[in-house]
């Protein structure tokens, strides 16, 4: 009875709709959030910024492209294919995400470097970062370590002599914020010179970025702008960022009270100390752009809280007690290393359990104990 055009049907498993969203959109959001920092570095560091990003971006993009070409092999179907066919097949497997993911890594990596890094330092770090931290694991989504953090550490460790952390251009003519003969960041100042060497650094200058350090890490106000954007777009998990920052600040507050009460340091201003630790180095940048990389963080809520908590504790411990001034990179990588354990199917759960709560309590207790003992008896901070 029905005079209809016949229907060509297609079967597919439910659900039949998807949220308007994609991994590429998430990457684009991160790039947008980095944009103010990128502009800042180009204004302040000019050619040096061009050098760093001009090397890191093509290196990482190219490495990923080569990887896709190798991985995108045609499945064996018993027929001979010309090179051209194979090449076209591989090209087809190159998706927008294959371009955006390394772009994000390259930008973050570049931001973690001081402008004075030599070009080969940038190149080697970028290459090692993407190849050893990501591609050998199977590409986007399979990596355990954050490629940008790995690249940064390789460069900072192997080429530290080429980095002079020169005072930034906009303070030229005025006196450098701290004595830069040590050639380090403000944090390396406290590490080598003790609290007295930072006692008169203006927190406002730190906040606005009138200081020295890695290109993307110095201007806190722009990082906060990026953070706000990412949170609004839900491109990162606020649980990670806030837990990390919260842990860091709380532990630094405890440390500063301990230092003040121990009387080890003269003229100690606890508020200034906390503010200084908060605003110096890569803590905010790491909390916004690196620790939150979803690929290298756990997938459950309790897992994410624990992950950020542990990273925060590690950062504080490394900053206060190790000879290395900056603990962010290491603590991120160490936390990355814990991710598979936190996501281990037998232990992971999407809700809090008593065991997990106890574990968290234990960690907090242990870390505070270490802090207090270290400060009272270690005497590293003087």
């Amino acid at each position: 009875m029905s005079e209809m055009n016949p229907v060509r049907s297609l079967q597919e498993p439910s659900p039949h709709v998807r949220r308007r969203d994609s991994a590429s959109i998430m990457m684009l959001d991160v790039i947008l959030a980095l944009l103010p920092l990128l502009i800042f570095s180009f204004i302040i560091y000019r050619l040096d910024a061009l050098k760093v990003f001009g090397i890191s971006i093509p290196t990482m993009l190219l490495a990923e492209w080569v990887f896709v070409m190798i991985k995108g092999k045609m499945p064996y179907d018993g027929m001979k294919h010309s090179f051209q066919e194979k090449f076209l097949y591989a090209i087809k497997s190159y998706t927008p995400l294959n371009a955006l993911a390394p772009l994000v890594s390259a930008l973050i990596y570049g931001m973690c470097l001081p402008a004075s890094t030599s070009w080969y330092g940038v190149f080697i770090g970028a290459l090692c970062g993407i190849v050893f931290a990501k591609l050998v694991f199977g590409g986007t989504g399979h990596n355990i370590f954050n490629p940008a953090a790995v690249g940064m550490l390789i460069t900072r460790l192997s080429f530290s002599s080429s980095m002079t952390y020169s005072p930034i251009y906009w303070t030229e003519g005025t006196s450098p914020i701290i004595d830069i003969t040590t050639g380090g960041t403000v944090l390396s100042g406290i590490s080598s010179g003790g609290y007295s060497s930072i006692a008169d650094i203006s927190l406002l200058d730190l906040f606005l970025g009138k200081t020295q350090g890695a290109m993307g890490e110095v201007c806190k106000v722009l990082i906060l702008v990026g953070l706000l954007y990412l949170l609004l777009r839900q491109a990162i998990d606020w649980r990670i960022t806030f837990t990390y920052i919260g842990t860091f600040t709380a532990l630094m507050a405890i440390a500063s009270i301990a230092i003040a009460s121990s009387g080890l340091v003269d003229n100690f201003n606890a508020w200034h100390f906390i503010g200084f630790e908060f605003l110096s180095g890569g803590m905010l940048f790491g909390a916004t752009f690196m620790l939150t990389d979803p690929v290298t963080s756990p997938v459950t809520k309790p897992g994410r809280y624990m992950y950020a908590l542990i990273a925060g504790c590690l950062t504080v411990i490394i900053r206060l007690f190790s000879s290395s001034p900056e603990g962010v990179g290491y603590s991120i990588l160490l936390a990355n290393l814990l991710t598979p354990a936190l996501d281990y199917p037998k232990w992971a759960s999407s809700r809090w359990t008593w065991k997990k709560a106890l574990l968290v309590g234990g960690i907090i207790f242990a870390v505070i104990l270490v802090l207090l003992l270290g400060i009272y008896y270690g005497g590293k901070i003087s």
Partner: protein
Amino acid sequence: MIAKARHIELPAVLLSHQELEEAPLPLFVFLAGTNGRCASYTLDVKEGDHVKIGDKLGMRKGPFFEQPIISTVSGTYLGIEKHLHHTGKTCDFLKIQNDFQDELSSLCHERSEEEIASLTKDDVLNIMKDMALVGLGGSSFPSYVKLQGEHDIHTIVINGVECEPSLASDHRLMLEHPHEIIEGVKYLMKAVGAKEGKICAKWIYKDLESTFSSALAGEEGSGVSYCQVYNFYPQGWEVACIKSATGIEVESGHLPAEYGVLEYNVATIYSLYLAIRYGTPLLERYVQIHGDGVVNPKFFKVRIGTPIQDLVALCGGYTDSGKKKRLIFGGPMMGNTVNSDDVICSPTVTSLLVLDEAPYKADPCVRCGSCVYSCPTHLMPVLIASAVKAGDKAKVKSLHPERCVECGLCAYACTSHINVTEFVRRAKRIAKL
């Protein structure tokens, strides 16, 4: 996006609300012999026999139950034909030529108020069996089974939530038949000795709120109340609906009855009302034909047994977009596709959603965790998916895929457009091996 998915956003074309139309009675009505749950049947009629509404034409045989095949039309029985059940299975259907007289069988007898008042729980249970009442929320599970237990029931929850976006059949039923539904609840409450009967619908339906507040006026002592629940997906899921209505959280692997609660779909209650009061089967359902694949989406009142092709033809047929169509029975989240439109409206069919092909290209999982955040049963779909990919059966089992209710949220929420739900379904099969 790293966020829990609670609302399903649909393209605007799917949301057009339609006026109800009465579909012309079909020339031929088809009654399922076999169906999704029943694999065989016996017949009590011969070709050429005259049948009436309410006549029992045979017995369907399920795995542990039997149910009569009841005619929804009067006319001549013509024999068996093969068509599709809405689950996609090819089934035997009894073909009846409609004589448009709608004669009632002598088997249908009206019960007086006194008779109804004297019905016991076993009587109601037998009526459910005799009238082949099944869960009309989509499960098609025989309704009497829920009544069999020995648990004390204090509350009956009537689920009219219909949480899938764009579906409106239960909403319409509640608007048109509030009194019948309230009576049905009262019958059932009396039979099982429940004190409360909660009729649940989404709070956003203001028209339902006013309909029921006037229908319930004067019913204060009866224990029946109208209960507004959230507008989240999947509120219509039994466990979520009970939680919102009563605050009781039914643990996975347990029956609501163990907590003193029974849950029935509104349409089931309506069919129970008809069965008890008039002794007739459910004859009609509200069926939506919608989606961007049909020319004029419409909303029909349909005689059960009508071929769905007739309804699509009334909507002007399929659009000519050159794309393949997905023929989805049910909503966009949980509906299943079938490979042909040769489907008969069984009592559980309330919607045919025709969507143009729109493939989703999957990226590698970025471990954003949205699937974990979204899962209403607190599973970790991403970990299940990777355990399935790794072929690790022990791991799959330790993640409890059997708790999944296949709501589809994990796939809906997936940042990388991976059909995570499909992985969890595979995990269920692996875990069962």
